[in-house]
């Protein structure tokens, strides 16, 4: 079966972002950008399904500015077969991304789409569920295990309190949690090979999708800063402070 893996370009997880002085957003100029870590896990899972002979072709898709081609190249170097860049310079909310992905699905007919559970910039945790809704497909979110079974998928999910198992009909949507796998590093030969793999370039208008945002960002502020407190010299002092100063135990 064909797989689609959406990958998002985000501020690298090691970067401590700074809020812009004019409160319009966060500083992203000259900041290291990477593939969303959950999407690396999604690509890895797709590549493993291909290595097991379950998947036949993997398409990596990214929506955003032209520079998203870098993240598609990373996916291609990890083992995806080809890429689609949906080029757009403005804000793309999860609903808009889901509509763009739906248009791609209608052209490509994948049986499975694997997304990250959340992007670490906007932290919406929404795109996969929204895409599942628009397609009328089942969803297996926060997956820590995915098995191909009885012509469908068995998905183990990380939920509050533990784990849960679902059987999904295909086609389906899966979103990845941290424990699904450990993504590989692309080898140098594979990075070289990835340069030759094709990336198709489309615009939202080519797909007939209106991506106008529904949310207006009025302002972006720093959260209240926490002051570093004091160091205590001993366990006795700590327990005394907790009992008599903070009064929390």
């Amino acid at each position, binding site marked *: 079966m064909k797989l689609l893996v959406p990958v998002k370009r985000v501020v690298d997880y090691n970067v401590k972002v700074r809020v812009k002085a004019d409160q319009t957003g966060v500083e992203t100029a000259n900041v290291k950008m990477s593939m969303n870590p959950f999407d690396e896990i999604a690509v890895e899972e797709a590549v493993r399904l291909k290595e097991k002979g379950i998947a036949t072709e993997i398409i990596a898709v990214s929506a955003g500015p032209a520079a998203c081609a870098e993240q598609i190249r990373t996916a291609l170097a990890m083992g995806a077969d080809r890429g689609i860049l949906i080029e757009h310079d403005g804000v793309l909310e999860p*609903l808009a991304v889901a509509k763009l992905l739906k248009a791609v699905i209608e052209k490509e007919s994948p049986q499975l789409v694997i997304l990250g559970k959340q992007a670490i910039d906007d932290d919406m945790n929404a795109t996969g569920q929204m895409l599942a809704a628009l397609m009328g497909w089942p969803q297996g979110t926060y997956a820590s295990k995915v098995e191909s079974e009885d012509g469908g998928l068995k998905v183990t999910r990380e939920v509050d309190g533990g784990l849960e198992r679902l059987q*999904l009909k295909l086609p389906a949507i899966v979103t990845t949690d941290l424990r699904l796998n450990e993504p590989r590093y692309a080898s140098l030969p594979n990075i070289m090979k990835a340069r030759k793999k094709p990336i198709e370039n489309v615009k939202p208008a080519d797909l007939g999708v209106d991506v106008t*945002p529904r949310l207006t960002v009025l302002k972006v502020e720093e959260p209240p800063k*926490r002051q570093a407190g004091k160091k205590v010299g001993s366990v006795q002092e700590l327990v005394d402070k907790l009992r008599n100063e903070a009064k*929390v135990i």
Partner: protein
Amino acid sequence: MAVLILADHDGSAVTQPTRSAVAAATKLGDVTVLVFGPRAAADSAAQVAGVARVLHSEDALYANGLAEPVSALLVSMAPEYSHLLAPASAAGKNVMPRVAALLDVQVISDISGVVDADTFVRPIYAGNAMATVKSSDAKKVITVRAASFDPAPATGGSAAVEAAPKGDDPALSTFLGAEIAKSERPELTAAKIVVSGGRAMGSSENFHIIESIADKLGAAVGASRAAVDAGYAPNDHQVGQTGKIVAPDLYIAVGISGAIQHLAGMKDSKVIVAINKDEEAPIFSVADYGLVGDLFKVMPEFEAELAKK
């Protein structure tokens, strides 16, 4: 305006994060709470202060919270409401974006503040920035960050409990089973005290050091991602940007370095204690009380000191 809340419960009562969602909802309009499961859970919802009406269903179709039938039902009920809310729990975050897309609206995830009926505050970039967003959608679909709203009192309400409608079964998924840990300890997102262990614990046996202190304090047990990935603690213990968000009165971080992703889940705690052998560890920059030392020496002393009155 009218608000519908999709409740979480533990089999007998609605959860504290659900009551936090009620607190957020009362700023928006009349509150109806939808409860799937035992009657006792619906009765508990009816007593929550600020709840005007409870809709209840014991239908097996909804018992396991499958996203496809639950969202189909919510969409069929949506015309009566201006806002659809759920706590930002694993269940709420799974269902609400699906509901939003079916209604062609942009979900607003994990709000930490209500400005007015259209405008909400939400943390972005692991809580390193707070965005105030205004929605132009006719209907709002929202998940609520429990740690940011004081829960509505569990008693004081006297809402009527009515039968919830039944929607179609999309028959797309089947619930196979679950392994939910039964614990005597308080729930992580509702606990007044949380004791968390990190990679430094070194093994799941050593993690008992954390559990033992937690039991002395009546606390919940948390963990860093590194501790969960290494198998020292179960996945549902993970505190952080991509785990659980907690804001207890007291958070004790043991052998945790204080990565941005971990801080995102606990830095709104009232009092933070850090125990780490590296005095440069970033966790000390948010700690009210820091103790530099080897946890394997400090923790037994800590437990002994707690035993003294």
